[in-house]
């Protein structure tokens, strides 16, 4: 690895007084997100399991007993992981609003930090599914130009918080453009 001329950027950023990402406090999602997420995944897995069982039952005469295990065991393992995962990953999932940008960090094993500046945001959306509604949660989605799916989707916010962030980001996006 060759030396990277770091001093060069450092100076520039210092004169511009750019806040460093690491120093600012991050905010966690609502604790209810854990349960809501586990339930959403459990519903999908329940549907999958019922489907698999029905399929296996229909062809029960043609298959050996271990086929049941070979199909259902992996589903159970993934299901268990999907239920445990939100509880483990919760503390590792956070967002941070700064004056000019928003950063969303996710992932327990594979970490992902996405940063979007407000002045590139084209469109904002707050949505609420039935399960989220039950847990009084909402999602905020941020879109930039040139993409169809959202660049960032924060899914475990209080509806008021989501609306507040949306209004603030929309205002900042308008001002900075």
């Amino acid at each position, binding site marked *: 690895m060759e030396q990277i001329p770091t001093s060069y950027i450092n100076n520039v950023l210092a004169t511009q007084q750019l806040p460093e990402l690491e120093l600012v406090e991050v905010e966690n999602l609502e604790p209810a997100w854990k349960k809501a997420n586990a339930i959403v995944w459990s519903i999908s897995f329940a549907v999958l399991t019922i489907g698999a069982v029905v399929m296996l039952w229909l062809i029960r005469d043609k298959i050996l007993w271990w086929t049941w295990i070979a199909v259902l065991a992996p589903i159970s393992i993934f299901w268990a992981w999907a239920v445990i995962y939100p509880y483990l990953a919760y503390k590792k999932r956070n967002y941070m609003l700064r004056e000019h940008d928003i950063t969303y960090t996710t992932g327990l094993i594979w970490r992902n*930090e996405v*940063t979007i500046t407000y002045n590139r945001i084209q469109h904002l959306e707050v949505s609420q599914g039935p399960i989220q509604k039950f847990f009084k949660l909402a999602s905020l989605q941020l879109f930039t130009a040139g993409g169809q799916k959202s660049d960032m989707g924060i899914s475990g916010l209080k509806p008021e918080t989501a609306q507040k962030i949306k209004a603030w980001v929309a205002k900042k996006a308008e001002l900075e453009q």
Partner: protein
Amino acid sequence: MLEDSINEPLNTESAVDDATIANFHGESTENWHRMSAWSIIFLIWKLFKGIFISNWPTLVAIFVFLQSKSFSLPWIVGGAGVTTLILFTFSLINYLRFRFFWDEEHLFIQSGIFTRKLKKVPFERIQSVNTSQSLVHRLLGLVSVTVDTAGSAAQEVQISAVSVSFADNLSQTVYEFRQQMAEKKPLDSLLHKEELAIEQDERIAKVDTSDVLIYALFENHLKTAGLILAFVLTIFQQVNQAFEDAPAEFLEQQTGNFVESFKTDLVFALVTIAVLSMVITILFTVIRMFLQNYNTELYKTSKGYRKVSGLLTRKKVELGVSKVQMIAWKTNPLKKFFGLYGFKLSNASTQVVNPGNLTGNIFFIPAMRLSGIKHTIARVLERAIPEMSEATKPVSTVYIFRQTLYFGVIPFLIALGPLLYFEHTNWLLAPLIWLCTVLFYNTFYQRNFRFHFDHETAWVESGVIGRDWVAIEWFKVHNVTLSSSPHQRRKNLCTLTVHTSGDKVTLPYIPTDFGRKIRDLAIWQINTNQRPWM
């Protein structure tokens, strides 16, 4: 007829639409334009193509079925007549329903056979007004217009056939609107002063026919050969299903002897297949490239660039300087020997949003000379290409081992089990070659990767045998992503991806500190650089 369709709304939705139009434009319904009447031909063709592409195995099956029933000539003529009549009726309704007009700020399009839709496209949203002229268009003096809004394909507006002067008129109106906008925003006009000063369009590159042929000949044919093989197999499977396995049996009967000789001489079989698919691929690539890029010309215009290309269908694509999101160019040793480069200006077009749509607007020019590339970069990025051999090598050697583990060692071990179990020991060479190829590929990828950056731009050089270059301006970036696996975190590495609205650049396995600094630099530029980014 025209008034009727306005006064008799088909449903409430269109009633609302008409009211909206009335609001915008008072009573002046005569401002609505129609396409040229010849457009019915193109509409029929489009409809026919649409039906045929999605249902062709079924159609072929029906045809064969009818043939076996030995219908007489009147029946066949009658059937063809009815089909044509249906196609014609639909196209006629479509033609009559399709109307458009524009005012100072918007383009309005009304269309739809069963439900009427009104599209309102603000000029501000229009990325470019592009045209395409097939042979038939040219004979009739017409042109097909595509208004690119950088949205999804559903938002894109296509007008099948209007006169050339009409298309120029629309293009001019949109351009003048932009000029006015630029004057309103003092910053923009300041930055585009130099561009506005250019009165005459200047040709900066012309691709010779021989260059296109050489470029096409030296393309990476291995990749295309794979794609063609997959395509042929899929089609064969479809036909096979439609005819209930008859083609497979037929093929087996016809090629029985041939296949027998294949079984006895495997090397002969492999060589034959390889040579055959290579020849087909090379022919296919050369013909396609030639048709699409015959007489390609790149013009420098007052607003940006214009590309005109194609043999049978001439396409004209516009791109404003400020709309260039990324510049990319590439070559390989053989192409470089002839001084040829593939060159792409990425823009936030519908094409990028819908990569499957190959007929869309790609600002790609094959067989460019380096001088043309330098010229364009000097104008768009306002600087010369840096000396990349002196740039940093940011990718860690960890990259080689990890990539080889994931794509080489693990597949090798997976293949090894069954091969040893079934005692296919003479096949062991294949996974071994694969493993070595992966190791070779990743080693050279890591070694050749170069990254150069300054306050405003970033440059990446990469490639194993050939070379790819990418240049971006930091302030065009939309989204910066830092990601890391547990192993990367232990080694203090991360993968940085910067997305523009055109394309993205990835720096794999770079030191985390460095990645963070690059991210901060990009964010700082996005926030402080006031130049227009789209």
